[in-house]
């Protein structure tokens, strides 16, 4: 297994034209162990989504450098080691779930649809949609569509999965199910998962490490190592340790409010 450690140094990001620039991220250092589940937790506008794209090599930072497995991050993108799951499913409305799930793999590898099908089917099975391959996006519920989006990333079998608030638009019940399913997928595949969210409980439930971020400019306020056992199920919510981590995260996110 290739060592796909992500190490980022002095990451800074500025947007806008010269003179009216906005500093989104300032001098960040992050090190991510291969196979770990790492979450960027923060309020909207803290640049967590931007940081995610930079760490995955999809976006080039203004300053600093990201190395994935010792090479520049862009090389990992070219070797299709990065699987992205955006906030909205962004499925092609004219393609079936199976076709959507195979689309990125086909582009990344140059395979024909028929050759990409086995991988896409395995990925759909992994997200619990083995039976829904023939359905068109408008026939899928929000949760199912997002599952297809996850399958689309998994079908490429990337070493690193980037998930940008993937469950933000789902209802609470579906969201809990998706979180449990994601924990299973992570355990089964051993992929590095970089996850972005503004939900504290989601972050604590899923992660090995939570980077709590602050705003103006975007920075990491504190890094929490989540010492809860694995595998995690819903019972974790009742664990006093869970509440402790959640309370600490909340404190960091709202420094002026005493908890």
């Amino acid at each position, binding site marked *: 297994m290739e060592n796909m450690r992500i190490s980022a140094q002095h990451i800074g990001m500025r947007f806008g034209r010269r003179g009216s620039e906005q500093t989104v991220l300032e001098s960040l250092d992050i090190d991510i162990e291969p196979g770990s589940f790492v979450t960027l937790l923060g309020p909207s506008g803290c640049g967590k989504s931007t940081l995610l*794209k930079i760490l*995955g090599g*999809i976006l080039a930072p203004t300053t600093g450098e990201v190395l994935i497995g010792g090479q520049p991050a862009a090389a990992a*993108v*070219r070797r*299709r080691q*990065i*699987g*992205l799951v*955006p*906030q*909205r499913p*962004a499925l*092609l*409305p*004219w393609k079936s779930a199976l076709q959507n799930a195979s*689309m*990125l793999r086909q*582009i*990344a590898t140059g395979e024909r649809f028929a050759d990409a099908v086995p991988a896409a089917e395995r990925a759909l099975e992994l997200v619990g949609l083995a039976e829904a391959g023939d359905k*068109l996006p*408008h026939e899928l519920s929000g949760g199912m569509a997002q599952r297809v989006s996850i399958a*689309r990333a998994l079908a*490429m079998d990337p070493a690193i999965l*980037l998930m940008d608030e993937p469950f933000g638009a789902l209802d609470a019940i579906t969201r809990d199910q998706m979180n449990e399913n994601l924990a299973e997928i992570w355990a089964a595949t051993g992929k590095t998962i970089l996850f972005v969210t503004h939900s504290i409980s989601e972050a604590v439930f899923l992660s090995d490490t939570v980077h709590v971020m602050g705003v103006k400019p975007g920075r990491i306020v504190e890094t929490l190592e989540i010492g809860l056992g694995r595998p995690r199920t819903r019972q974790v919510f009742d664990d006093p340790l869970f509440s402790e981590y959640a309370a600490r995260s909340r404190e960091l996110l709202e420094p002026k409010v005493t908890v």
Partner: protein
Amino acid sequence: MATAQQMRTKTESAPKRPGGEEFRAWLSRTWPSVLVLIGAGVVWELAVEIFNVSSFVLAKPSEFIAATVEQRELLLTAAWVTTEEILYGFLLSVVVGVVLAVAIVRFEWLERAVYPLVVLFQVVPKVALAPIFILWFGYGLAPKLLLIVVIAFFPITLNMIVGLKAVDQDLLLLMKSVGSSRNQIMTRIQFPTSLPYLFAGMRIAITLAVIGAVVAEFAGARDGLGYLIQFASTQLDTPLMFAALTLVSLLGLVLYYGMSLLEFLLRRRFPHIKSAESA
């Protein structure tokens, strides 16, 4: 009574097909305007009768329906000539419009260099170009096609550009995350995404193509419905004029609904075409 049974099951199952339901909905939307049209025809007929208007000035519907039946061969030949002009001209407009839009969106420098000129060109009253095209290309098919393209390509280009740019930003990011090329993004994402917009543009273009063909025939032709209208007017054959005019309108209507049909058929393959129909 097996056949009766079969027929009943057939009609009972008919509304289940989406096509059948849509047709019913279309029918219930359409019949009031058909009634108004028939009513207007009756009022027209009676008015010409009562006020004793000369048929040189205004033909009665019954007169030009009679003229249509009487001169059906002449009219049909002319209609076919015009239909051919319209269809070829329209297809050429689609090709020109789509190629131009794809090129403009694909190459930024083209957008800066060509797009403003394309928009500026819309200020030119294109009907006034017809005599020039006749002068250059004579009485054949070429000047008709050219005039149709010049009139009809613009809504196609404009709509297509909007459609090509209306791509889901998350999808673009996904494509970037696997290092895909701009050409891949164009063919796999942008082009299919723009189809509903293209169809909206084509609907406008087909009616403009009818205008283009008739105007080109006015300016100089040896056949076609536009030519027939002018010919009839020099002969003071008002019923024939109205007959040809009605036929041109009918032709436009048929072509417009032909576009709807094409759209409907393509929807099986690209279900998102429906969503932009109302836009």
